[in-house]
């Protein structure tokens, strides 16, 4: 475990919770001053999972922000995947559980942040076993869910229908399992799974993946699974993935089977800086780093990427450059989220029952 301190002057605030944190997501802001986050907890003393809306108040007088719970909602099981999306009038939260159910929630942030359940899918055929990952489409009207059972479901919700309906996009019958998913466009999404495999799906061309990125490109070296995928709205042809053994790579649809490895295993280049050898739990394009000259970066170059890992690293990785460590904790960082509206803010969940909020300056 690395104990070295980060070099750059970002402010880190830790909030011990007395509960395990399964997932953290920012919610779109309703006013300029308040920041809200949706947090999935698991209280191991009482075996009770919960989803809570927390308000992050940065008090200007004291530099110490506070994290206060606004409301709480009890799911039937622990949360395996949590996503939020901007929607009017209220932001939408999609929460998937280990028992295989999906919950669409809405939170009225202006009036106390109460959580309202917008619909639940918990029927037997939806997923068999846990839902591995979900992703909400921009605008929050559709949600795609994947599982290790090999099922890909598309859940549609319009208005406040309490009964959600879903459509089976594909069922691999467990021959292939999916562990991550991300929308690329209103009709396309990307899934990831075992052997660092990625699949590109297009609803307009049903029946199977439109394009597949072959796993096992690391040729005999330790293989692994994809834990997280991100796609930049301005670079829809490039799919970013993070997974086992510190691996972060990008798949450019135009350069079919050749991955662009940003970190980790399976690289022939000795110059590759080894950021972490353990699991990369989440990857997101970092809209903060050099966000100003994004247009200057050549379209073949991968934009800066933030990652968090099992060995406690939160870092920004840029192609061909030394990674910048933002946090080096003695315990795992299991998930993080960059605030879309205010990308200097990052919220992370730490293994040792605490939340960290990072403000970059």
């Amino acid at each position, binding site marked *: 475990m690395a104990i070295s301190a980060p070099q750059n002057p970002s402010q880190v605030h830790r909030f011990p919770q007395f509960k395990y944190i399964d997932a953290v997501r920012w919610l779109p802001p309703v006013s300029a001053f308040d920041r809200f986050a949706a947090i999935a907890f698991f209280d191991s003393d009482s*075996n009770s999972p919960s989803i809570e809306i927390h308000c992050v108040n940065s008090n200007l007088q004291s530099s110490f922000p506070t994290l206060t719970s606004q409301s709480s909602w009890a799911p039937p*099981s622990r949360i395996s995947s949590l996503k939020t999306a901007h929607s009017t009038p209220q932001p939408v939260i999609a929460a998937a559980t*280990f028992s295989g159910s999906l919950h669409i929630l809405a939170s009225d942030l202006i009036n106390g942040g109460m959580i309202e359940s917008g619909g639940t899918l918990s029927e037997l055929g939806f997923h068999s076993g846990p839902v591995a990952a979900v992703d909400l489409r921009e605008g929050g009207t559709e949600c795609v869910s994947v599982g290790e059972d090999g099922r890909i479901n598309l859940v549609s919700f319009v208005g406040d229908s309490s009964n959600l309906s879903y459509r089976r996009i594909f069922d691999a019958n467990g021959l292939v399992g999916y562990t991550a998913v991300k929308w690329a466009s209103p009709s396309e999404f990307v899934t990831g799974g075992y052997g660092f495999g990625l699949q590109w799906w297009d609803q307009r061309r049903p029946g199977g993946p439109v394009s597949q990125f072959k796993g096992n490109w690391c040729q005999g070296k330790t293989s692994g699974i994809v834990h997280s995928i991100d796609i930049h709205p301005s670079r829809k042809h490039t799919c970013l993935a993070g997974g086992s053994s510190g691996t972060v790579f990008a798949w450019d649809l135009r350069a079919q089977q050749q991955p662009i490895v940003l970190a980790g295993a399976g690289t022939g280049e000795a110059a590759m800086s080894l950021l972490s050898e353990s699991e990369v739990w989440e990857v997101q394009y970092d809209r903060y780093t050099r966000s100003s000259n994004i247009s200057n970066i050549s379209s073949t170059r991968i934009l800066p990427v933030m990652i968090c890992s099992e060995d406690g690293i939160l870092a920004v990785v840029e192609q061909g450059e030394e990674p910048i460590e933002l946090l080096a904790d003695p315990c795992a960082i299991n998930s993080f989220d960059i605030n879309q509206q205010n990308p200097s803010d990052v919220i992370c969940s730490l293994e040792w029952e605490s939340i960290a909020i990072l403000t970059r300056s």
Partner: protein
Amino acid sequence: MEKPVATLDRGTTCSAWNYCGERLAAGSVDGSLSVLDSRDPSSSSFTCSSKFKAHETGIVKVTWIPPEYGDAVACISEDGTLSIWEELVEGTQPLLWKLCKSFKTSSKVLDVQFGVNQTSLKMVAAYSDGFVKVFELLDPLELNNWQLQAEFQNVIDSVSTFGKASCLTASISWNPQRGEGQESSFILGFNSNTPQLNSSKMWEFDPAHQRWLPVAELALPGDKGDQVYSVAWAPNIGRPYEVIAVASQKGISIWHVGSTPDLDGRLSIEKVALLSGHNSEVWQMEWDMSGMTLATTGSDGRVRLWQSNLKGTWHEQAAFEPTSS
């Protein structure tokens, strides 16, 4: 204080946790078997996920099969039949518990335990006629294909056999270590009317001659006929000797067994403690994962915990008495 983790159906007579303590199998007097677990990781509240009729008569004992071979249990029923059940998905069918194998013999099965080594799974079953059978699994993915590897009686000199033995209970405990180069071995004791069968003996597999040999008898000369209720082989995390607990009518004895055999192939043994506590029959003995604490239950209805101090003296560290209020 104590934390309730599960509630059992009426008529439950026996239970067993799997290797990681995340699933509980509970057998009932009507022959049904319930499996309790939780869909949430790290949860400590378990509810029934399946229940099925495993036997026509009541279940008296249930044991999990090592996890390398799937989620499966072996059940012994009142009439002495042994069956193996496995949870699996076949084709497009939903997940269900399926009968893999049923062993029916004229004599009753009293205890069954599984031992794993590098490549194979062995099953030892002790029968009411004083015989022991060792089976080996032929296909690692199919729990229906067992081959009888050996059959012998629990006696130290193999010349004599006892035809008319009648055994009430038996207790088997495998050596929990499974490192490389470790030969399979287990300890076995009977509660029977035949004194020679009773005392617990340690059996070790001799790969050169493909046979099982008794390497130690854990009883003092005067106690060899004592009926044995339960045996438990402690995990060894670095001791130069093995520690084994044997419960007989005289109490619970703790044995140290050396690792190098003498010229006759016997291991050196030393009885380091005789503990009395449960007054009469000991039902069950379990070592914790470090092999430092022994938990026992018996017909006095208490759970007792035993530990050794720095001087090597074993003593009762605590006891639990069930109360309804």
